[in-house]
């Protein structure tokens, strides 16, 4: 573990009052700029002195990036909305309970009061080799220290590894993908909307980034359509301790049933790869099948096909299989229907 020092390297702090001003600063300072949301990820980097940005752009003074609004049958959540606000919002609780569940599973109450949903989905991986500042692939080097014969890689990937075996740590990301959310990104060339599923990228696409956000771009909001509102939801996060810990594996599912038959389903697992994994094959498999043990068993086996455990994380394979089974069976489901 890196030694956290008490004094951060010096940087110039900007506190813009609008996203336009923030974008202007990002455009001016390019790769030298660092976006500060709630600061939970940023201050680790800065105090460890691994990242040394020259300019920090604090978004906390931009009101337009905060709050939850109803929009076109769904909702729009400002990127700077805190996780606590998400958890407490009545529309989220009533129609998108899986997001409430996922946001409430993040870290601790104090961190949720400060951490934002934009930061939660955009945070960097927690691979401790990477965060120690060594020159691994993700840091621009030519080795993955977490994927060697004697690595300590209990928390790392079992799917989608491509040189780097880090995993995505976000709790809200799988819930948002399950809900069919889209990310609103603003940059110098205007606004673009990206499906939540496509917002996250693996190391094969870009080994130094976790999301499609490019330098100079800002995640301004997350839009959730009404398509899956009120479905039967299931969210479960397995971690070493029940508070203030990252997921070892998490699963999020939204199911629409007719009687005992699964009509439609979205199923996402996280902390098993560098990006949340939507299990489309499993979704297709369970459509039209009864929601029972046999379907869950088969789906669980299908979910783990292709898994390649490392030295210390083979436990994630049966864990993921069982979470998928539980999501399909609906044991302990969180439902608002």
């Amino acid at each position, binding site marked *: 573990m890196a030694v956290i020092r008490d004094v951060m390297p010096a940087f110039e702090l900007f506190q813009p009052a609008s996203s336009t001003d923030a974008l202007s600063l990002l455009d001016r300072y390019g790769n030298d700029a660092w976006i500060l949301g709630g600061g939970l990820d940023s201050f680790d980097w800065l105090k460890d002195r691994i990242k040394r940005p020259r300019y920090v752009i604090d978004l906390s003074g931009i009101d337009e990036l905060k709050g939850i609004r109803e929009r076109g049958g769904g909702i729009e959540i400002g990127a700077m909305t805190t996780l606590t606000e998400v958890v407490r919002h009545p529309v989220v609780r009533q129609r998108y309970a899986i997001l409430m569940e996922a946001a409430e599973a993040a870290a601790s109450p104090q961190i949720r009061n400060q951490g934002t949903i934009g930061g939660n989905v955009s945070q960097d991986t927690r691979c401790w080799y990477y965060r*120690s*500042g*060594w*020159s691994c692939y993700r*840091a*621009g*080097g*030519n*080795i*993955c*220290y977490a*994927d*060697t*014969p004697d690595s300590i890689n209990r928390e790392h990937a079992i799917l989608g*590894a*491509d*040189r780097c075996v880090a995993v995505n740590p976000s709790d809200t990301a799988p819930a948002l993908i399950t809900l069919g959310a889209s990310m609103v990104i603003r940059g110098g060339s205007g606004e673009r909307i990206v499906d939540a599923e496509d917002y996250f*990228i*693996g190391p*094969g*696409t*870009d080994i130094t980034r976790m999301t499609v956000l490019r330098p100079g771009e800002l995640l301004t909001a997350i839009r959730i359509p009404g398509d899956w509102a009120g479905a039967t939801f299931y969210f479960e996060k397995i971690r070493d301790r029940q508070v203030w810990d990252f997921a070892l594996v998490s699963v999020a599912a939204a199911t629409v049933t007719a009687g005992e038959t699964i009509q439609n389903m979205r199923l996402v697992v996280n902390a098993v790869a560098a990006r949340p994994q939507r299990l489309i094959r499993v979704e297709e498999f369970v459509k039209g099948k009864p929601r029972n043990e046999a379907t869950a068993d088969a789906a669980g086996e299908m979910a783990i096909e292709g898994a*390649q455990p490392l030295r210390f994380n083979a436990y994630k394979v049966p864990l993921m299989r069982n979470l998928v089974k539980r999501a399909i069976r609906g044991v302990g489901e969180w439902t608002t229907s």
Partner: protein
Amino acid sequence: MDYFLTFGHSPWGQQILTHVSWNLMWASLFAGVAFLVAHASYMVLSAHRKRHPDETDAMEAARPDLPQRIKRHSGAARAFHWVMAASMFTLLLTAFLPIAGVKFAWVQWHWMAGVVLTTSILFHVIHASFWLDFWSIWVGPKDLPELRAEVMRELGHDIPGPKPGKYPLGNRLYHLALVVVGLSVIASGLTMMVRVRTALLPRNPYLFSDSTWGFVYVTHGVAGVALVGLVIAHVYFAVRPEKWWITKGMIVGWITRRQYLEHHDPQRWIVAGTGRRGSETQSL
């Protein structure tokens, strides 16, 4: 130094070589395009000598024993060339497009294309060693008179000196450069496959020390960026109007008798079946 090489730190705090700087990719691209523009300008503006058609007519009239079509490349040789070209383009695109900002999952395509390239090169080495005139593509001191004659002709002088055998001197020099750069990129690339997950080799990131790995990565990078310039030059010459007959020969496998006599020395590239044999007896 950062402009050419990049460094990182090992867990023991040692500075380690990691990569060639990708600035060099842009430098190689620029050099390739600059060469292209300079050569094209020279060809437009210079007084390089063109053979008068009457001279070639006379040469053709003197060699009625030659067939109309002279076989230049066998089917196997052409297949190798185009497979190698396809794999080379795949390698360059998968390597450099992500650096240029086009993001996609490139590693698997890259190593698979590398395996295809390596296999095709192995085939070529065996094929050229046992079925072709192995030495016809190499350059050596014996080619100095031809080099001098080529330069003088390019400068507009009417030099009667030696003409090339099967391969023009430019081709042979390019081949030599490609051998050096290509073997470097293949040897380093095959070694680097030990660091990524493939179905072919067991992973062993500790095969070498960090500094040796750095050297391997830099070798691969330097050879890779050199290939950008070399491939630009190759494609440029392949599509130049006065060289098109060579490219067409690589597509269809033959050149015309007129092209053979105009551009080659029949004593250095003996066409089989004509009954005239010299020191270079293997022609096809």
